[in-house]
């Protein structure tokens, strides 16, 4: 590891001397977990105009369009979330010295530090490495952090502890030659049981779900292996590759899958390069055949068994003797905290305690206090969780009050872990280059409002989950919550308005195997009101004991959308300009020094009509595909409807060129290709390429889908194509100098 870090330090020096190509250097730093961060292209919109940031070494880059002097994000792998006190101490020091004193826990159990200078990274990597922490392959086209259920080993419902297996997987694949040639990232998760959601195996590229079988009277451990899951713009639920794979075959199976993916996975089009697309393209049976063939051909490797054996032996969590013997008086809030943050371990004398971190953040000082607490009560038994929290395990019941009091002093006793107030959020526009809306700003606002209301919530309401992403890439895992949001934007008159797309009906159960579908775009500033209304509706209409998702499925998204319709409207800028600024920001959201168009707020262009119609069609399609009771034929019809929505969106854009353009699908497709694709008008840096391929694929089949999965995917793709069309339309508007183009064919708003 030391030699690799030395080499990286040399690479940084060589890049400064322009002796390494910027693209090559970008991949090199990504493979060390050193990621880009917002504004690193050297430009920033200040609320009036986009300004150049006058970095001292302007023009020296650390990747394409990435200024060398701009700070970045450092992602640090924490395999299956397991962390010792010593490791947490080093992380706290690094956060303080190289970042801003904040440790951020991600939904994949990593730790992230922001605002890090690339020239500080080698020293930081050495310090982390000395504590047994790696940043290797934390980003880039490689095997990312191997995640695992944080309750592994103490869970009431697991079949067995997956921790040693997750550890073996991490160690075996880290830097393995067979995982160095992927077209995209590859995420692996372990789960100890099939029914719960903590492991999230079904939304991963590769998932291992604990399974057992009896062979000749002896119980044998193994895994149900699933492959090709993933969230992102087009979410896929993983498919079963093997219903049972003995534990000794876990590593060779991983290796064989990696080899198939490296050999056949897409390399040129990043938007289609995740393994889920390969599985969908080949079909799970063919994919299995290829993996089986690779397994046959693999040279036997002694490490397959050795890693598993070693991992099992080396995995242990010391159980300390109780730290206290008396019943100390608890600080305020103990009862409420116990209700939500304490989990009864399978081992009756122990409990696990969740430290609820607002938006996944804690300070270095809190982290250091926590290491003292760990050493007193639980030794090294700490896990990061997939809900951006921390979990202390193996707490003696008799220590609970004393532990609470110590956590209270460290300001780490926020209650409500895993409840409605525990909103998950990705970094969004705060630091992410891809963020569209302020997910952290919104989540902070939601948390504060829901905490204020929490005393009114009964147990069923408290169980509702909310997750927020700043864009459709799903880092906030919005698909798998009862109420999900992802960032979007809309043109209103001359202005851009931050929005969030609302999704309902996702679920954590079954290893996050049920994804929510979009209801519609809500102006960012109306999201809290939308959540309030949804909770009120649910409270009023639920049947005895009915959870949120079954309520959504019973009442139907169409009916719910109808009751939210008024919240989707945006008042004109002159009436309320707060809608035109995102949460916890002060800048106007629109781009450029926009003059108010003379017809702003009063006319709607034909393009906007077409886009609205497209949204309506895709919503109808989503209703069909989401209804488990409809016939297969109806489901397949939804795919055609989604295709029709794409045609309408494309038609809308074509109408900016010619209001009388023909509307038959064939003409729309060819005209769109000629006028928006060949001219590159549809493409922006992160938008357009994949969305165009979705339209192409749908057009090639005339909108016909083979099965429910494909129909569902088409609906998701249509939604994305419409979003990209909105974005393209906004760019066209800006190019014309402001808001909606004042075109001769604009028509009066009928409403």
């Amino acid at each position, binding site marked *: 590891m030391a030699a690799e870090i030395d080499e990286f330090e040399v690479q940084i020096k060589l890049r400064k001397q322009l002796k390494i190509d910027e693209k090559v250097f970008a991949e090199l730093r990504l493979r060390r977990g050193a990621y880009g961060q917002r504004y690193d292209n050297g430009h920033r919109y200040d609320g009036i105009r986009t300004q150049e940031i006058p*970095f001292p070494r302007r023009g020296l880059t650390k990747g394409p369009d990435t200024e060398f002097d701009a700070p970045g994000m450092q992602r640090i792998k924490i395999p299956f979330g397991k962390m010792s006190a010593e490791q947490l101490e080093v992380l706290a020091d690094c956060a303080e010295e190289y970042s801003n004193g904040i440790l951020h826990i991600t939904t994949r159990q990593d730790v992230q530090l922001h605002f890090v200078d690339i020239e500080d990274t080698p020293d930081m990597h050495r310090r982390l490495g000395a504590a047994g922490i790696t940043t290797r392959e934390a980003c880039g086209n490689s095997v990312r952090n191997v995640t695992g259920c944080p309750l592994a080993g103490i869970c009431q419902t697991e079949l067995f502890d997956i921790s040693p297996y997750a550890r073996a997987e991490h160690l075996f694949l880290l830097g393995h030659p067979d995982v160095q040639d992927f077209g995209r990232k590859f995420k692996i998760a372990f789960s100890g049981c099939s029914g719960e959601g903590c492991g999230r195996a079904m939304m991963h590229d590769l998932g291992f779900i604990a399974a057992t079988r009896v062979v000749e009277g002896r119980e044998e451990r193994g895994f149900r292996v699933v492959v090709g899951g993933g969230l992102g713009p087009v979410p896929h639920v993983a498919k079963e590759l093997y219903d049972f794979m003995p534990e000794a075959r876990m590593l060779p199976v991983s290796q064989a899958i990696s080899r198939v993916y490296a050999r056949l996975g897409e390399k040129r089009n990043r938007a289609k390069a995740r393994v889920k697309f390969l599985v969908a393209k080949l079909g799970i049976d063919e994919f299995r055949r290829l993996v089986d063939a690779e397994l046959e051909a693999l040279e036997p490797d002694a490490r397959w068994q050795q890693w598993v054996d070693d991992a099992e032996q080396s995995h242990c969590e010391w159980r300390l003797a109780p730290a206290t013997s008396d019943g100390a008086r608890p600080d305020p809030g103990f009862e409420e905290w116990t209700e939500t943050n304490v989990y009864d371990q399978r081992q009756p004398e122990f409990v696990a305690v969740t430290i609820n971190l*607002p938006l996944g953040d804690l300070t270095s000082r809190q982290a250091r206090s926590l290491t003292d607490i760990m050493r007193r009560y639980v030794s090294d038994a700490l896990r990061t969780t997939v809900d951006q929290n921390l979990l202390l395990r193996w707490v003696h019941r008799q220590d609970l009050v004393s532990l609470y009091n110590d956590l209270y002093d460290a300001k780490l006793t926020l209650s409500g872990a895993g409840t409605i107030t525990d909103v998950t959020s990705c970094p969004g526009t705060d630091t992410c280059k891809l963020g569209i809306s302020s997910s952290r700003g919104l989540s902070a606002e939601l948390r504060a409002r829901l905490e204020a209301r929490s005393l009114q919530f009964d147990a069923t309401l408290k169980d509702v989950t909310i997750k927020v992403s700043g864009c459709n890439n799903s880092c906030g895992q919005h698909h798998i919550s009862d109420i999900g949001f992802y960032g979007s934007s809309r043109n209103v008159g001359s202005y851009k308005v931050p929005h969030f797309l609302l999704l309902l009906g996702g679920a954590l159960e079954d290893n996050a195997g049920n994804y929510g579908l979009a209801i519609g775009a809500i102006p960012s500033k109306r999201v809290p009101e939308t959540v309030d209304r949804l909770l009120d509706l649910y409270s009023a209409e639920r049947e005895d004991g009915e959870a949120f998702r079954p309520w959504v499925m019973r009442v139907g998204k169409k009916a719910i959308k109808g009751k939210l319709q008024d919240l989707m409207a945006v008042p004109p800028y002159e009436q309320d300009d707060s809608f035109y600024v995102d949460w916890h920001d002060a800048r106007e959201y629109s781009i450029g020094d926009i003059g108010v168009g003379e017809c702003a707020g009063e006319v709607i262009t034909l393009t906007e009509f077409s886009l609205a119609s497209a949204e309506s069609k895709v919503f109808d399609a989503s209703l069909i595909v989401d209804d488990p009771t409809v016939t297969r034929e109806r489901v397949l019809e939804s795919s055609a409807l989604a295709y029709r929505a794409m045609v309408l969106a494309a038609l809308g854009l074509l109408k900016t060129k010619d209001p009388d353009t023909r509307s038959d699908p064939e003409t729309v497709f060819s005209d769109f290709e000629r006028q928006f694709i060949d001219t590159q008008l549809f493409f922006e840096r992160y938008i357009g390429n994949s969305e165009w391929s979705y339209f192409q694929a749908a057009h090639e089949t005339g909108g016909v889908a083979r099965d429910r999965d494909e129909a569902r995917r088409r609906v998701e793709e249509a939604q994305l194509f419409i979003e990209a069309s909105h974005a393209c339309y906004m760019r066209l508007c800006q190019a014309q100098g402001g808001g909606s183009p004042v075109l001769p064919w604009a028509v009066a708003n009928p409403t």
Partner: protein
Amino acid sequence: MGRAIKGLQRICLKLYAPEPGIGDQAFVPIFHEWIRDQALEDLVLFDVADYAHVPESPGIVLVTHEASFSLDRSDGLFGIMAQRRVNGSGEASDMIATTLRHVLQVADKLEGDHRLAGKLAFDRSRVMIEANDRLRAPNTDEGYRALEPLVSTAIRNVFGDSTLRVTRVTNDPRDRLAADVRLGVAATGAP
């Protein structure tokens, strides 16, 4: 140690003020406006970070290329904390002096902002300085012996020959080496 600490570049420096009695979010539009106008001398301003949801955190942070300025409450007291972010070419005392000038500039400007009028009053007779580099400036007696003259030189460089008292901050040994500076106070006596 003296030689090692010469390489010290990463400094944190805090000016204290009584709690302003306004929400941290009030600083967000001010910092955005400063970025728009590149309103601070010798600094490249480019971002605002919001950690106000975390207790005793940096709160709202103005990020510049050279340093971050946060509404710090990490020791339970309100103040503006400057964290030098990038390495410079000067001696450690120069880095301390430069960072001190920067934080004084920020304090002056905040106090002068009409939106905060009368709500902020920084105590310029007290400065807390941390060596944000455990490798070069460990939190030990020897480390402090090397840091103290650098701090005194830097403070005199900025404030002139005023009397000052520099004391080591007693803290967790794992925390950063820190010095508390009182100006207008005799080195050994009371104010």
